[in-house]
């Protein structure tokens, strides 16, 4: 009897734990959002965060976008040349990037770089009791640490997504024309014909949602980190993993609704 009851109990406990964790996290998100507009506005801090999340991620975005664009051309050309349809290479690459790969990969790169750093920083502050010190000084730690990063993320990640898209298409164009001998004029004009504002708009909406995920989970995990160096490491790992899963799952949901 016990051997049947115990595992079922464990499943129940795990489910309840997951549900209450999501609830806590959502309430944290709400408190982050609410405090974005409450004074003091902390513009200096927001600018610093924007520099950290935005400017410092440009390098990695340029790098990954270049390789993504080139590999799309390589695979696409291989597949299309058998049907004499290389003329569809431009739209294939551009639409894949703008609709899916740009927003998702840019978000994953930012999550890996900035998200992990944010989680580690906030977790470090929690573990060294600096967050408690903020409370003692009557500084709202959620507003000071999390809301500012949320705003910075929302303002920079969509722009990073755009830079990813443009760099990917440019790298694809150069690779296709210089290495594979594809006609540049056809590539460029077929891209212009195929890409609609609705595609760019979808790309923006996705990056906005992903930006919220990154700031939210990174701050939540850091804020609720367990004690010690282990806690900091755990918070950082959790942040990156959970954000990545959310980005991919959210991408599916948004695509289902928007496409």
């Amino acid at each position, binding site marked *: 009897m016990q051997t049947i009851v115990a595992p079922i109990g464990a499943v129940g406990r795990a489910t309840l734990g997951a549900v209450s964790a999501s609830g806590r996290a959502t309430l944290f998100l709400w408190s982050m959002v609410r405090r974005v507009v409450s004074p003091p506005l902390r513009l200096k801090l927001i600018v610093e965060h924007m520099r950290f999340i935005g400017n410092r991620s440009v390098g990695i975005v340029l790098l990954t976008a270049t390789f993504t664009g080139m590999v799309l051309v390589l695979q696409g050309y291989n597949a299309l040349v058998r049907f004499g349809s290389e003329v569809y290479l431009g739209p294939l690459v551009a639409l894949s990037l*703008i609709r899916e790969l740009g927003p998702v990969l840019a978000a994953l790169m930012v999550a890996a770089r900035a998200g992990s750093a944010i989680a580690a920083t906030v977790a470090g502050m929690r573990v060294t009791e600096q967050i408690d010190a903020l409370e003692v000084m009557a500084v709202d730690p959620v507003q000071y640490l999390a809301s500012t990063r949320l705003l910075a993320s929302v303002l920079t990640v969509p*722009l990073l997504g*755009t830079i990813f*898209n*443009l760099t990917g298409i440019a790298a694809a164009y150069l690779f296709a024309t210089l290495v594979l001998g594809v006609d540049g004029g056809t590539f460029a004009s077929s891209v212009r014909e195929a890409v*609609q504002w609705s595609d760019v708009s979808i790309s923006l909406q996705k990056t906005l949602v992903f930006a919220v995920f990154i700031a939210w989970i990174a701050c939540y995990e850091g804020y609720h980190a367990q004690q010690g160096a282990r806690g900091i490491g755990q918070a950082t790992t959790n942040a990156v993993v959970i954000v990545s899963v959310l980005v991919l799952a959210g991408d599916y949901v948004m695509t289902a609704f928007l496409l």
Partner: protein
Amino acid sequence: MSDHSRAELAVGAFVVVGLAGLAYLSVSIGGLELFENDRIQVGARFASIGDLKTGAVVKVAGVKVGRVQAIRLEDYAAETKLAIDANLVLPSDTIASIRTEGLLGESYVLLRPGGAEDNLEDGSRIGQTEPAIDLIDLLVKYALDSAEGGGESSEGDGGGMPDLFE
């Protein structure tokens, strides 16, 4: 320059470059129309529209001049509303046909101007339309014709077809 002013400059440059890139992506590549050209709306009814969708392109001599705004079923025919650049002067006996890009591509509406004296205005109708050409229908028709033409059919099933229709 203080540390913070450098940060402000860096972030400002990032935002400006990002927004400029977004504008280029939206307007130049994505075709976002910031200043709407004046359009006139014209109605056209087709027996069959094939794969035509709302938002499909309307062309004259291969050049885009407008879009399909709406498609509705009326009396078992497709009633469409076409939005065409107001600058364009089209005679009232213009013919509208549904064509496809290449053999299997997207459907679009082709307008061939006639020679009438009065022109299409906002709200007028295109009288003459040609429906979409269905490739499968053509193939079946060809198969039937060549089967009835007597003797051998090159298709394996060709022998079965005349039995149905004789």
